């Protein structure tokens, strides 16, 4: 990735829907090369996702639950994590180190919904215990743009600044 790529990336972080013509004009290259660079960044996986941010409350999700999972003795949660990734309403999941081996974030509509989902997750392989906590307020900005803006470009040391 070079500086021009970074300029494109920065524009898209602000607004991923910004027309390529506008970006081209702003950074002073042709629209064609913006498109070419964008496609390349997407194809090689540098840009992993280009998505909208939603207000979860406004689509009916009243809360976010944080699940910390512990595996039974001597086993791993790798398989459970694979299942979790495919589970509806699990929006984040990762392996972990510390008191727990797995971490997941679940969005839910009401307490019955939460109960059903957690019961389902409990059946995944090797999960011995789940520590559950949740928030019901201030969740609307969980996926908001602002939270993603912290992604900042730190210049590669090998790259010379202009």
């Amino acid at each position, binding site marked *: 990735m070079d500086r021009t790529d970074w300029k494109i990336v920065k524009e898209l972080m602000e607004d991923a829907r910004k027309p390529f013509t506008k970006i081209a004009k702003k950074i002073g290259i042709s629209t064609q090369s913006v498109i070419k660079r964008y496609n390349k960044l997407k194809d090689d996986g540098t840009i992993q996702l280009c998505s909208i941010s939603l207000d979860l409350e406004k689509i009916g999700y009243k809360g976010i639950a*944080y699940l910390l999972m512990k595996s039974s003795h001597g086993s791993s949660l790798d398989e459970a994590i694979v299942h979790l990734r495919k589970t509806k309403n699990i929006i984040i999941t990762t392996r972990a180190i510390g008191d727990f081996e797995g971490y997941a974030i679940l969005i839910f509509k009401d307490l019955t919904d939460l109960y059903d989902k957690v019961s389902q997750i409990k059946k995944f392989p090797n999960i011995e215990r789940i520590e559950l906590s949740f928030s019901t307020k201030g969740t609307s900005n969980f996926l908001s743009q602002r939270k993603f803006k912290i*992604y900042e470009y730190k210049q590669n040391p090998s790259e010379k600044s202009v």
Partner: protein
Amino acid sequence: MAPQVKIDEIDVKILNALLKDARTNFRAIAKDCGVSTPAIAKRFYKLKRTGVITGATIRLNRKDMGYRCSLSIDVTAEPTEEINIINALTKLPNIIYCNQQLGNYDIHIAARVRTFEKIDDIRTIVKKLKGVKEVRITANLDEYDFFPENIVIQPTETTKNG
């Protein structure tokens, strides 16, 4: 709490398409829904105006961002200081998300750091805040990234007209 916004099947299709790729053009969505392109545009702006769509952004490969480690941190705090702690933490660049929670701990934090050594810095910062009693850190091994495909959006009403 923000009330749920009324959305119908076509809105759901728009949201799903844009979650998958925020740059999906309206023409493609229109074709899929069997309505006109301006009708899709109109709905898109309505979804923005009502705050369902809060923005659009891209996500980069974490390696390219320079982030190596994500953390989930649980904090117990003096009840009177909770809001102050959250306000202070939200301002920090490394904190992706910070909210009150119900459960064993009072505040849940998601953070991202560049190096493993920085984990300790975060811990120190959090510990030094007034009113913080206990801090528990769980280091996440995988990327702290959400899976938009797992968000289930249900229409609240049936489509009346295109």
